[in-house]
């Protein structure tokens, strides 16, 4: 896989990378730059905001635990002001705790910090191409939330009531390790429509406004009025 050679002639995709750990930041920046992306790097929330003010990137890659705040704030603000910007979370373990909370504020995928450079580039390319990546464990977390439960399960709040049965079926397939082609085969779909469904799932899990967040929290019994 050599995305750099493929993407070279095209206009470079702009990326804002927000990561406070310097070695990791360098590593990701290297990997992305080598793949032909135009990368701005920031180590703090403040730097990230300053960078956003200068130039709106096509892709925002951000860590969540930042020295001067939480990455989710940045994701939410970016999602509201720059809806065209694709957002991905950089996660160490790809755990639902961090990824799901980021998805609810507008992220559409995650990148593992120790991913191989080629994988990093591929993931970003896929994202720009409209293929939101979703891992088996995240899919598993989401489908588990669609199952009726007396008490709210631990972890970040997540409203799955807007997901259609078909979308839930797709999530089940992903959680069990089936490929998009296999899922499409089992469900009688066209393989090409699966990524669209996944993008739709992400959008439905997103909580758009503060008011909506409160409303949904009430709906789910997380807040008692």
């Amino acid at each position, binding site marked *: 896989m050599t995305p750099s050679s493929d993407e070279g002639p095209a206009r470079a995709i702009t990326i804002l990378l927000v990561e406070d*750990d310097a*070695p*990791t930041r*360098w*590593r990701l920046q290297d990997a992305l730059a080598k793949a032909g992306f135009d990368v701005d790097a920031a180590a703090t929330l403040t730097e990230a905001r300053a960078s956003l003010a200068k130039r709106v990137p096509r892709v925002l890659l951000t860590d969540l*635990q930042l020295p001067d705040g939480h990455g989710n704030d940045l994701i939410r603000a970016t999602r509201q002001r720059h809806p065209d910007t694709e957002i991905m979370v950089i996660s*160490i*373990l*790809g*755990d639902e*705790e*961090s990824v799901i909370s980021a998805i609810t504020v507008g992220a559409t995928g995650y990148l*593992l*910090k*120790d*991913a*191989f450079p*080629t*994988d990093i580039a591929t993931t970003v390319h896929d994202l720009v191409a409209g293929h939101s990546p979703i*891992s*088996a*464990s995240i*899919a*598993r*977390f989401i489908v*588990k939330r669609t199952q009726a439960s*007396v*008490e709210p*399960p*631990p*972890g970040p709040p997540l409203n799955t009531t807007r997901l259609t049965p078909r979308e839930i079926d797709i999530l089940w*397939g*992903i*959680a*069990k*390790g*089936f*490929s998009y082609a*296999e899922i499409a085969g*089992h469900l009688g779909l066209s393989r090409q429509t699966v990524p669209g469904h996944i993008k739709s799932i992400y959008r439905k899990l997103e909580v758009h406004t503060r008011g909506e967040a409160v409303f949904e929290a009430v709906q789910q019994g997380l807040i008692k009025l």
Partner: protein
Amino acid sequence: MTDEAVKPAAFGGLKSRKSLSWLFQYVLLQVLIAIVCIVALRHPLSAPPPRYSVTAFDLQDRGTTQSVTLPDFVPSRLSMQEPASYTGSFDWSEGEARSAWSVYLPRFTNGVQVTVNGVEILDSRRDPSANRLDRATPEIAVIPASLLREGPNELAIRLFVWGPISGFLDRVYVGPDAALRPFYGQRTLLFVNLPMVFAAWQGILAVILIVLWSVRRQEWAYGALAAAMALGAIQAFLPTVVDQPTFPRLTATLIASAPLESGFVLAFGILFFARKWPRYGALIFAPGVLLVLVGLFGSSGQLGKLFVVVGLPAIGLNLVLLALIAAWSELRRQDVPSLLLGCAVTIVLTCLIHDVLAVVQILPDRRIFFTGLSYAAMVIAIGAGLTWRFARALNQVDGFAARLVIQVREAEEKLKASFAREEERARAAALARERARLMRDLHDGLGGQLVSIVALSERGEGGTGIGDAARAALKDLRLVIDSMDDIGGDLMLALGSWRDRASAQLRPHGIALNWRAATPQGLPVHPELRPWHVIQIVRILDEALTNAVKHAGATQVAVGIDTFADASGFARGSITVEDDGKGFAIAGGGDELAAGGDAIKADGDAAADGETAGRGLRNMRGRAARCGAELELVSGAGGTRVRLTLPRRFPDSDAVAG
């Protein structure tokens, strides 16, 4: 009868045709009972042969003398003085019989003193039982032989009258004792002994009811009935001594306690059948209390008058009310106690009316009062009714207990099930919480540091080994965290995550991952699956994958997930990891991976790699054994195939550690 006339009027408003027909039947039954009663009451009592009767007397009363024929009445008076004096005669001849002769008086009110030829042979006032107006006590006295004279003998009877009702003297018989005594015995049995037996029943019933009420204080009906029964029993056993009563007022009061007793019975009827105490219910006791007060503080004459004027109507009214309540209760519930009591009240009422007619001399012939006797019917009815209700209550308790046992058992089962569910949920929730906490810790600490190591090693020269190690550590960390997630026994959910990690691991090496699940379901669900099982299985798969990457030089790894039916038809899952690498020799009876395979040599350090691979295989076998899974390893020139057959049931503990 008047009570029968009242009932239809009281229930005339009933709408239901069925109720009406039923009411008709009930009333008909009561009328029948009343008729039977009347027939029985009017049935003549057996009497000695008429030739022994003495009926012609000269009556000397209040200064006047007249000839009378017995039975005869004299007006009531309040004094023991000036008794009416009857004088007659009978014939006796020595030759007629050598046996003893007696004077037999079947019925008199209130007391008699009998003299034969001027010698007193009998004074009924010394017999407490005979002094009771309500009991038709007969008297008999043997005439001492020395008194009898050949030919006519003088028989003088002084009739004492006290109390409110007129004096009465029935036919008198004089004849051989043997001829008269059987009739005397018969009457005694009927009018003296039988009432005592009934009184004894009443006493027993009173004791039972008192015990009952003391245990169930809320059942006021039993309290009222106990009071009525106790009063009746005491009254019956109370000796009536006219001349020197120990407590004359108390005695008089007790004898006049019938209205109070009937009040208690009515109160019982109301509480027992209506189950609601009327607002002015206390008025029931007003006549009885009035009589008691007059008895204790007034004169005996006043008491007697009041008894006739107030007491008797009160008894009658109470009985009529009781009849109505019983009829109403029977109409509503149609149970045995109501019916029994209704019939008993009809009997008593009939007798009471009969007695009143006898007192006012409309039925003059015998003057035997049956009310006291008929009261036995009521006692029997009450006893039977209570017993019936107890038996039914016991049946209900039995049924209730049986039902309760079933319900308790059902509830227990449900509780057990919900307990198990709750426990399972609590366990899952605790696991999830623990996992979330652990993940946060690892994420913030160890994870970040490992990522830094990876980044640093990639920047530095020759640090790939460190980087790989750090990456492996991260991968392991993800595995552990992933396995702790509750996957509800569906191993496929764990394999899904493993597929993500495996493809990430294989991609840099240019090895393709060929994933094939035979069915959408993939593997059977194992509810008993625990995180440690998942870790063991994923580690086995990881080991197989690592072998393929490191030692075999494979270009493709195929993972097959299958469900098959074993020898006994049990659905079992199998996972196969197959590479197209060089394979390696398996020695030591399949127990150990021997050094010397091409794959190992190719990596350079044969001995060390051999050892690593050997340890790897041992580990795989050990892990499989711990999960109860079967591991099958086939390696040859065409590649290596690891087939893991899942157990029917995952073991609870890893005691079988290999």
